[in-house]
Structure formats: C-alpha cells, structure tokens
C-alpha cells in the first residue's frame, strides 16, 4: 500500500507548474517594469494596449494550443489570418455586408481547418508539411487577391445594407434621419437607454465595429493637454477573451477537449481507449482553422485594412506564446490560460525593450532574444529541479 497515503491535493502537473511560472514571471516582469521604467507601465492603458494589439494573436495561439496538445502543429495560422483580413477588406470595399463578411471570415478559416484537418488525420500526412503548404497557399492567395493595401472604406454610403438597417431603427424611439452610426452615438444611445444593446448590434455597421470600444474611464489617465484618456478595449479583445474562456472550458470539461489530451499523450493508447483518433485530430485542426478565421476578422477590426504582409511571422509568435505558457510541442500537455499569459509575456518583453531606450537597433532584437532565452532556460531548469525533488522525495520515503 505504498501509494495510498492520500494527499489532500494532487501536486501540480508540469503544465500547471509552467503556467504558474509564466504568470509569476509576467507579474514580476510587469511590476519590475513599473518600478524601473514608470511612464507607460504605470498606466492601466498599457495593459489594454497590449490586449488591443494582440487580440488576434491571443485567438490564434488558443487554436494552436489545441493543436499542440493534440500532438500536432499548425503553422498556417498567421497566413490564414492574413488571407481573411485581405478577403474581408476586399469584400467590404466592394459593398459587402458586415454580417456576410463575418461569415466569410469564418468560412475561410473553417475551410482551411477542414482541408488541412482532413489531409492530416484521414490521409495521415505529416502536419508540418500540410500546414506549411497551407501557409504558402494562404500567403499566395492573399497576394493574388491584391498586392495593394486594401483600406476598408467605412464611409456609410458605401455600405449597402446600412440603409436597410436604418429601416430597423423605426422600431426604436430614435429618429432615423438624425441617426448617425458612429460609435459614440451608438454607445451614447445605449447608455441613455434610448436603445437596447441588441438594437445597437442590429444597427451596427463596420464603422461601429472598427471604432467601437469599451471605455473604462476611471482606469484612464489625463494627458498633458488635459484630455482624459480612458482605458479602452476594442471589441476584438472581448472576442479574444471569450475564446480563451470557451476553449479553457472545452479543454477542461468537454469530452472532445479531454480527447485532445489523450491523443497528444499517446496516439495508440488513445485509439485503444476507444477514442476516435482521426476525428479528434481532425476537429483539433478545424477548431484551429476556425479560430484563425476569427482572428483574421479581429485583425481587420484592429487595423481596418488588408495588407499582403499582415500577420507575417504570427505563427512563430503563437508557438512561442503557447510554449511559454506551458504547452509542449510533443503533445498531451498544455493549457490555454498559460497561453494567454505567454502572449502577454512576449509583448511585455517587447514593450520593455522599446521603453528602456535601447536605441541601438540590433540591441532591440538581441535583448528580445536574450529574454526569450532566459525564460526558456528557466523553464527547463525548473522542470529539471522539480523532477529531482520529486525523486529525492520518493527516495527519502
């Protein structure tokens, strides 16, 4: 009966430990930056900036985390994001409807997920090649669509469906003639109770999405010119956080989520445990593709324009974020909350490097590399020490 001595709590798994480290490091780093660099770090806006700028990355990293937990890899995510941005921008510029553009984004993402997932799981092709080809294809398609930047024209007149939406205003207490679809207007209306939130959504057009923000005034600061700058969060961030929560729940409590872990832990075992390995793997890529699509749309909401070079290198950032957050490329281990903090860490590093005033350009990337290096080695050492401690504890017993 050597193992029956029950602990009240199970020890942290490696992934949980890495996640905890990631969170701690993030806090230490951030608080350190607050003490040393002050400036922007003392403003809550800084955190919101990071979130606003990286909502797409967060979403993509979540998808990648799922794939990595399942023991796979998807390096097409950045390119798919880019393609979605370009396609949606073109679509909107040619008079497309906002809702349809969302469907388009999801459709493209899903399309990639479905095809890549099918090739990888049902035809048994190495994921790296399939998604590399996917990446090439998406990049190529982006430039085939347009090599010129596509700035979404948010002038309401171009938005065919807006007129129809104006019609919907009849049901509200607002005069359609004076109605202006700028965000301020909408939020004001919502706040003043003249319009319900759902009506606001119904009356949404791309501009409301693009310029829409959730503003938290008391968290803001006052600029030298006397303007109050509220901390603001773009809608994309809400979507990103929602993704994190949903996927967290999926991974933790859903049958499928647990299936991803089993698959990544040991594929043959998963098969013999009665898990539909092919379908599970397939779904991991489908979800990842879907998230890339969503990420693309969020990206578009952030920049309002399609560019051939959008999201270049995003896949590497996403992989790095996942790993820093405690996901292993070898599969079976990972955590989406950790991934979220991975993204935060990566970008805090960037902020610190810029803020520190290291102007010699090569220093910036070398410092980034150095911090990454330090971080990765720290992780490895912690895991090593932990396994040692665990061993010696067994020995002592």
């Amino acid at each position: 009966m050597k193992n029956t001595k029950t602990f009240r709590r199970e020890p942290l798994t490696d992934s949980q430990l890495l996640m905890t480290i990631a969170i701690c490091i993030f806090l230490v780093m951030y608080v350190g930056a607050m003490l040393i660099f002050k400036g922007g770090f003392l403003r809550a806006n800084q955190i919101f900036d990071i979130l606003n700028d990286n909502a797409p990355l967060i979403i993509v990293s979540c998808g990648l985390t799922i794939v990595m937990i399942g023991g796979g890899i998807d390096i097409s995510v950045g390119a798919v994001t880019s393609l979605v941005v370009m396609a949606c921008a073109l679509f909107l510029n040619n008079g497309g409807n906002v809702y349809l553009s969302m469907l388009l984004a999801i459709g493209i993402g899903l399309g990639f997920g479905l095809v890549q997932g099918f090739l990888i799981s049902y035809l048994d092709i190495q994921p790296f090649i399939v998604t590399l080809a996917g990446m090439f294809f998406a990049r190529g398609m982006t430039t085939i669509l347009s090599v010129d930047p596509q700035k979404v024209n948010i002038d309401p007149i171009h938005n065919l469906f807006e007129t129809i939406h104006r019609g919907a205003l009849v049901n509200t207490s607002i005069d359609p003639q004076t109605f202006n679809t700028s965000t301020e207007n909408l939020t004001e209306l919502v706040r003043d109770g003249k319009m319900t939130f759902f009506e606001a959504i119904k009356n949404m057009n791309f501009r409301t999405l693009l310029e829409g923000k959730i503003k938290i005034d008391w968290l803001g600061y006052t600029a030298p010119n006397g303007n109050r700058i509220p901390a603001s969060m773009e809608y994309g961030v809400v979507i990103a956080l929602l993704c994190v929560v949903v996927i967290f729940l999926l991974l933790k409590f859903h049958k499928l989520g647990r299936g991803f872990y089993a698959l990544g832990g040991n594929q043959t075992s998963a098969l013999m445990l009665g898990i539909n390995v092919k379908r599970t793997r397939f779904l991991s890529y489908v979800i990842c593709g879907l998230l890339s699509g969503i990420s693309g749309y969020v990206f578009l909401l952030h920049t309002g324009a399609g560019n051939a070079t959008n999201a270049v290198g995003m896949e590497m950032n996403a992989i790095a974020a996942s790993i820093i957050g405690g996901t292993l490329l070898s599969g079976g281990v990972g955590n989406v909350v950790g991934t979220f903090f991975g993204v935060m860490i990566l970008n805090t590093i960037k902020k610190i490097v810029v803020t520190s005033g290291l102007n010699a350009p090569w220093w910036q990337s070398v410092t980034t590399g150095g911090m990454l290096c330090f971080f990765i080695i720290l992780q490895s050492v912690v895991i090593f020490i932990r396994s040692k401690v665990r061993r010696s504890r067994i020995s002592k017993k």
Partner: protein
Amino acid sequence: MADHALLEMRHINKLFPGVKALSDVDFTLRKGEIHALMGENGAGKSTLIKVLTGVYQNDGGEIRVEGKNISIRSPQDAQNNGISTVYQEITLCPNLTVAENMFIGREKDVFVHNRRREKRANELLGELGIPARGSQMLGNCSLAVQQMVAIARAVDMNCKVLILDEPTSSLDDKEVNVLFGLMRDLKARGVGIIFVTHFLEQVYEVCDRITVLRNGELVGEYLTEELPQVQLVAKMIGKDLDEISSFGEVEEKEFSDADIFYEAKKLSSSDALPFDFEIHKGEVNGFTGLLGSGRSESVRAIFGADKVNGGTVKINGKHVKITKPIDAMKNGIGYLAEDRKRDGIIADLSVRENIILALQVMKGFFKPISRSESEAFADEYIKVLNIKTASRETPIGSLSGGNQQKVILARWLLTHPDYLILDEPTRGIDVGTKLEIQKLVLKLAEDGVAVTFISSEIEEMLRTCSRLIVMRDRRIVGELKGSDLNQAQVMKTIAGGES
C-alpha cells in the same frame, strides 16, 4: 453449439508485409467461460485479439457476436459491441489522471464530471485493492499499477466479452489473485473471458477451455481438464517439452574470493539506496522481492543507468568508476532492461541494427561494423535464438513481444560480456523459449560469465540461480544459497519477520 456461443470468429486471416500472422483461424467463446489463448511467441495471439478489437482490419473472415454478424472497424466499435480489452503492452495515456484513463472514450456524456468520475474511480480502485488515487497522473504510477488500472478499466465496462492479453506479466502473486477473483466473478455473471498468458499454472487455475495457435494457424480447441500440461506444451511448440527441458539440477559451485568479478560497496544511485553486492565469475545470482522492492533500481545502479551517487566499485579487484552505461559496457557488463518498449528496442530500426547496436557502441564511433559483418551477426543470432522475423531487415517494432525480447538478448550476447544483467528477460516469453533462455544462462555461466537474473517467477530463479538476494522496501534483507534455496524459504524471507 452455436446457440450458446457468445463470440465466433471464422476463417480469420491477417497478412502483414512479409508475414502471414493468421491464416484461417477459428475461435469460439461461450457465455460464462474463461478461455485461454495459447501459443508460442509470435503465434498470432495478440494479432487475433487486435483483429477482434478493430485495431487491425482482418483480410478475410467473419466475426459474430451472439449470432449476429458484425463488422468491427475500430476499438470504439468493439466497445460498443460489448468487447473490452486489456492489451499486451500498456495502452493508457500517461498524461491523464487514473480516473480519466478509466473512463475516457466510453462515457456518453458530452461534459466531463471530474468529481463524480474520481469518486467512482476511487471506489473501484479500492475494491480491487489498487494502490492509486483517481486524481493521480497515470504516468506517476508504477508499471504494475498502470497494468491494474488498465484491468480496472476493462472490468468496469459492462462488457459481454473481456479480453486479457498477458495481463499478469507484470503483476505479483497477490495482484494475480485479485485478478483471478475478479475473473471468476465476471464469469459467474455470464461474461466470456479470453485470457492470454505464458504461465501454464495460471491457465490451469482459472481456465475452462484452451485454444492453441501455432505459426498463425489453429491447432485446436480443448477442454482444460482433458489436456494435460505436457500435451499442451507439445501442441504449442510442436514437439515434446522433454526434448528441450533436459537440464539437471543447478550444480553447487564453490566460489573463492579470487573469482570475484564485480564488487560494489555502498553503491547508491538517484533511485537506489546504498547497498553492497558482489558476484563471481561463472556465478548466476538473482534478485527477488515483491513488485517495487527495488530490484531493478539496484541493478540499474550497477550498470550506471541512473545517476550514481556514491559507493566504490571493483572489477577483477581493480577500482573502476561506473557512472554511465558506456563505462559499464567497457568493463564488460551488459544489461537487458526490464521495460523493453521504453529502454530496449529502437522500434523503427531493423532487427539487424538492433542486434549490433551495443557492440557498435563499444567498438566506438569511428569504427563502424561493416554491412556484411553485421548481416552475419544478425543471421547468426536469429538462428541461435530462433527469432521469428520476416527478415533481418524487418523493423523490430513489428515483431511479436517475445521475439523483440530475443533480439535485445541477442544484442547483449553479441558483446560477449563478462557480466550480464538480465532484468525480467523472460517476461512475455513462451514456455519453450523460457527454458531455452534459462539454459542459455546456465551455459553462459559455464563459460565463466557472471549473470544476474531477475524474474518475478521464483521457480524460474530457483532453477537457474545459485544465490538469491532478497529485497524488501528497497533494501537487501537477506541472501539465500545452498539448501536455503527453496520456495518456502524464499517466500518467508520476502515476507519478512511478520510471517
């Protein structure tokens, strides 16, 4: 007969590249019986089972459950048809908890109720006396516990057919008895059980019927009471056991201190507590003890497989330092590890490459063994050890478990060690081969090789070893030789003062 047949397999064929693993095999399982599936290593037992459970697709033949023709495409199909399985190699996910491993893949609920699951798991584990908690990571459990968890999982399914492929190879007697109790319970409830093992006594203890396979072909189906052990063996290996089992008593050899080949004082490693140990040239000794008593850890320390923490080692009277496997190998020590899958085979490499590996390492990086030489070595040992493989270039991963073991054995024999450590070399090995290996050990000893032999079967050790070291709770608690070497005495020492 067909009306109370629970499961019928007819004309089952299975072809692997280069091997006909099953040809036209019939198998029938009735309600409420325990049916042993017997055969030499590589006879096709595991393959038959994998066909039945949908891991492999059959290349012809049909499967009927309760008279209905069914097609089984995947383990999931098998589960849905009431067939639950414990595979030969442990097939659970080390990165999931014990509870998850027990329930994943067969719950209807879309959402997982961890609490409920763990509670249920803990109850079951308690019932079966498995020392694990539901919330524990499976990877942190010992091999034996993992095996028991796999059994618990299979048993808990409300199955009609339960398949156990060598479940007992890493269990000790107590656990085996628990398992047998369970099997009898299930049998009483009308479950049909297929049981694969190489332990003949176990067959006679619980089984009602025996089906024998040889070389992928059906030899026949027999009632246990009508088939004496000797005949069973003869049917399995195609000749009488007597022909091969003709070896006498272990001779009493006297060893002088001058003959000491290896001597360790206060040797300890990251996993083993300090211990003293010595072995003479030409001596066969054994480590025995309960599961987890630290036998493997001790010999791993000798070989330098784990990080060595302290102690002095003398070989042939000279002080040497052994901290890494290569040190040990250079000093003439060979070690056949107990976990073949993890520490033994290089799955994708050919049988030939697997055989020459250790020798190559000893020769060094810059002196590769030529192709023709290595082919000669491989052919020689395939013949000597009667390894069943399509060719010497077959990847070792596709060999049957027992044959993989033989390849690894060949690897170490090829290095012509002065001291060979065999940790459970007979695990998963058929009776015939077991005897061959025992004979081989004795022959090695005759040639002056020191051998340490570890086995869970005490009889086997009594047959081969002239000295037994007994371990309990990771400490050496006794040493038996001469007239003390008998089952009762060993059991008593293992159990310790309490008995």
